[in-house]
């Protein structure tokens, strides 16, 4: 302040003259990142914390009840049990991000499975090799998703109604398509291998090393890109820690899978990982992904910003259809065929509950693809653990329902906190 200058008091000068705020630690350092994380928690952005707490709780509970739960064999089993539901849940996450719902994913995955089973059956003139049948099935499921999405995108029919109608229609299609014997066996080795094949241990290590190398390269590439763009390159400590964690997790998972009685990493697990990486990249690092979050947050604002809301809506239901189809491949592969009830049972509820429990908001605009995996792990580990200790089915349903309710309650509560803090 210059001596003798007039002392005008106003908010602007107050800001200029008030003492500098205490410096928050640089979020690029480990300590700073931790501080920023705690601040986010306090303001209601809980992220995956509730799910991880639930996971730890479930593991501790079942490990205390049976010595078999926390073993390599069971871990490997769990991957196989999670894969189908989680793949479908990835599609559900996208739909929920828009604030819509897709009630047809259960039987849509069933239709996908039936399509594969039908086309790979020999002797009726339409037979094709198993993998071609898989491709056909994925195209079919995406088209069905597009068909349903077009009602939502072009005519603005509520997605609840469209997909509910789709659910009924697809169930009828499955009953009609599966012939009189009411189940079709899949003989194709490749299709059955999707859920039945485990990588030899050496191959598993190669995959873990490959993942570690790929992740390291992506960090290096990002670093170099920033350097080339002339931007200040950030502290490497955090990315290195992240790389170390990812590599460690990769090698540990392979070690555990190799140690179990299945002697290897399941293919369905690798498929799930590949899909998670792909769709996380789409949701987080592409323009389309940003548009999805924008439309989900506020469709009208997105429209005025020039985003093609109709295309986004259509595309999201196509993604939902596609992922239901991918999940359908895994589910059909698990039982080496399809029954007239393929895609039924608790599958639909588990897929949607998985996305919600994992942290996707039902109101749209918030959520990450990884939620599909986290929620599926919670649900399937409850089912897995209760089966190991021989509990009745009703306990499974009650516990899963309670956790789903808790997840939505936490999400709603966190949302209110966020609004209070102005985020």
């Amino acid at each position, binding site marked *: 302040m210059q001596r003798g200058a007039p002392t005008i008091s106003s908010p602007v000068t107050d800001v200029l003259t008030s003492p500098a705020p205490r410096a928050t630690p640089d979020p690029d350092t480990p300590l700073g990142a931790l501080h920023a994380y705690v601040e986010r928690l306090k303001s209601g952005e809980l992220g995956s914390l509730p799910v991880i707490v639930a996971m730890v709780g479930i593991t501790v509970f079942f490990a205390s009840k049976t010595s078999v739960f926390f073993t*390599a064999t069971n871990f490997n089993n769990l991957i196989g049990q999670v894969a189908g539901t989680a793949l479908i849940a990835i599609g559900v996450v996208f739909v929920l991000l828009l604030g819509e719902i897709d009630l047809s994913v259960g039987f849509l995955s069933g239709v996908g499975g039936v399509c594969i089973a039908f086309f790979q059956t020999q002797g009726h003139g339409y037979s094709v090799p198993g993998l071609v049948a898989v491709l056909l099935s994925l195209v079919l499921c995406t088209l069905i998703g597009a068909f349903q999405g077009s009602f939502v995108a072009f005519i603005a029919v509520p997605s609840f109604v469209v997909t509910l109608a789709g659910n009924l229609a697809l169930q009828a299609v499955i009953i009609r398509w599966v012939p009189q014997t009411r189940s079709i066996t899949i003989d194709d080795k490749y299709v059955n291998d999707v859920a039945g094949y485990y990588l030899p241990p050496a191959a598993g290590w190669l995959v873990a090393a490959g993942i570690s190398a790929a992740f390291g390269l992506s960090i290096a590439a990002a670093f170099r890109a920033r350097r080339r763009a002339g931007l200040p390159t950030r502290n490497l400590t955090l990315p290195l820690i992240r790389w170390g964690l990812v590599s460690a997790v990769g090698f540990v998972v392979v070690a555990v899978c190799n140690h179990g009685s299945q002697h290897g990493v399941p293919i369905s697990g690798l498929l799930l990982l590949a899909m998670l990486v792909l769709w996380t990249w789409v949701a987080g690092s592409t323009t389309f992904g940003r548009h999805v979050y924008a439309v989900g947050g506020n469709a009208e604002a997105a429209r005025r910003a020039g985003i093609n809301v109709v295309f986004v809506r259509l595309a999201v239901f196509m993604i939902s259809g596609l992922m239901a189809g991918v999940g359908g491949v895994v589910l059909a592969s698990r*039982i080496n065929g399809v029954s007239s009830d393929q895609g039924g049972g608790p599958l639909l509820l588990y897929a949607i509950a998985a996305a919600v429990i994992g942290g996707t908001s039902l109101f749209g605009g918030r959520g990450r693809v990884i939620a599909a995996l986290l929620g599926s792990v919670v649900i399937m580990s409850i089912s897995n653990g209760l089966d190991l200790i021989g509990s009745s089915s009703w306990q499974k349903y009650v516990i899963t329902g309670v956790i789903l309710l808790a997840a939505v309650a936490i999400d709603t509560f966190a949302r209110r906190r966020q609004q209070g803090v102005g985020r």
Partner: protein
Amino acid sequence: MKTISRALALVGLLALVVTVVATSASATRTAKHATAQVCVLLPDTKSSARYELFDRPYLDKAFKAAGVSHTILNAQGDAQTQKSQADGCMANGAKVVLLDQLDPTSGKAITDSVVAGGAKVIDYDRLVVGSKASVYVSFDNVKVGVLQGKGLVSALKLNGKYSQHPVIAELNGGITDNNAKLFKQGYDSVLGPLYKSGVFTKAKAGDQWTDWDPVKGQTIFTQMLTRNSNHIDGVLAANDGLAGAVVATLKGKHLNPIPVTGQDATPTGVQYIVAGWQSGTVYKSVKAEAAAAAQAAITLVKGGKVKTNGRVSGTPSVLLTPVWITKANYKLLFTDGFVKRTQVCIGAYAQFCK
């Protein structure tokens, strides 16, 4: 300064990795001893109440008496769940799995994975045709169907309609259920010749396979009544649940009772029998079936060979004999402890119990 902090970061990273690997090593320990030597995979609760009402407690008691550790699970009609339960059984170290399949495809897949894991499969009550199962334990299901067919014929002879070309409706069970096919084989062997010779007339009908669902059965039977102008003289219902659906439909339309068959000797079925709405039911002592299956499982666990008395579709089988229950001999159920008198002779039905 920067190099030191970076070096520290790398050391910390290494320590983290080592810790994580070390803790996960403890997770790689596999269970040293089997926590359940025998695993029972029940199919559902929709097709029949017997699995939770009778099979579970009888099997539980039999295994406990023999000191064999066991787990009893119900897949609630979902093939994916049954596969997961089978995987859990193998992780628990099961030596024998009692499988009650949901459909032939998943049944075969589960049998294959269990056998590949080194355990033996006993097909309990439902057969997976051509699978790697060691034994099939069940009632002679063709004999069950024959009893139903013969029971319907004698009921029609009793009420005099036999010689008047009665119109007969059939409500079959679940089309994926191999047992349902065997029952049909049995009653077709009795009814077929009678249709052919013109003694009986077949009711006009569409799809008569009910998935063992009484609600579906009611819909199908209502449509049959409509198509046949309410003129149906006898119903071969494959089980008591379906018979109950027929009785409810008849009562709802204020029609007179007609001969209806059943199976499973449920309390409701017995009530209808004593009240005259149902002609009879097939009594399959689940106690005997569970005892035979448990015995087979215990024999296999101890490494012995199971004594079989037949072969069904190539699988060595232990086949038990069913009994036809009518108003004349229903008290046998009470003495056997299968149904309690207090479950049947209550309310409006008390007057019928002599």
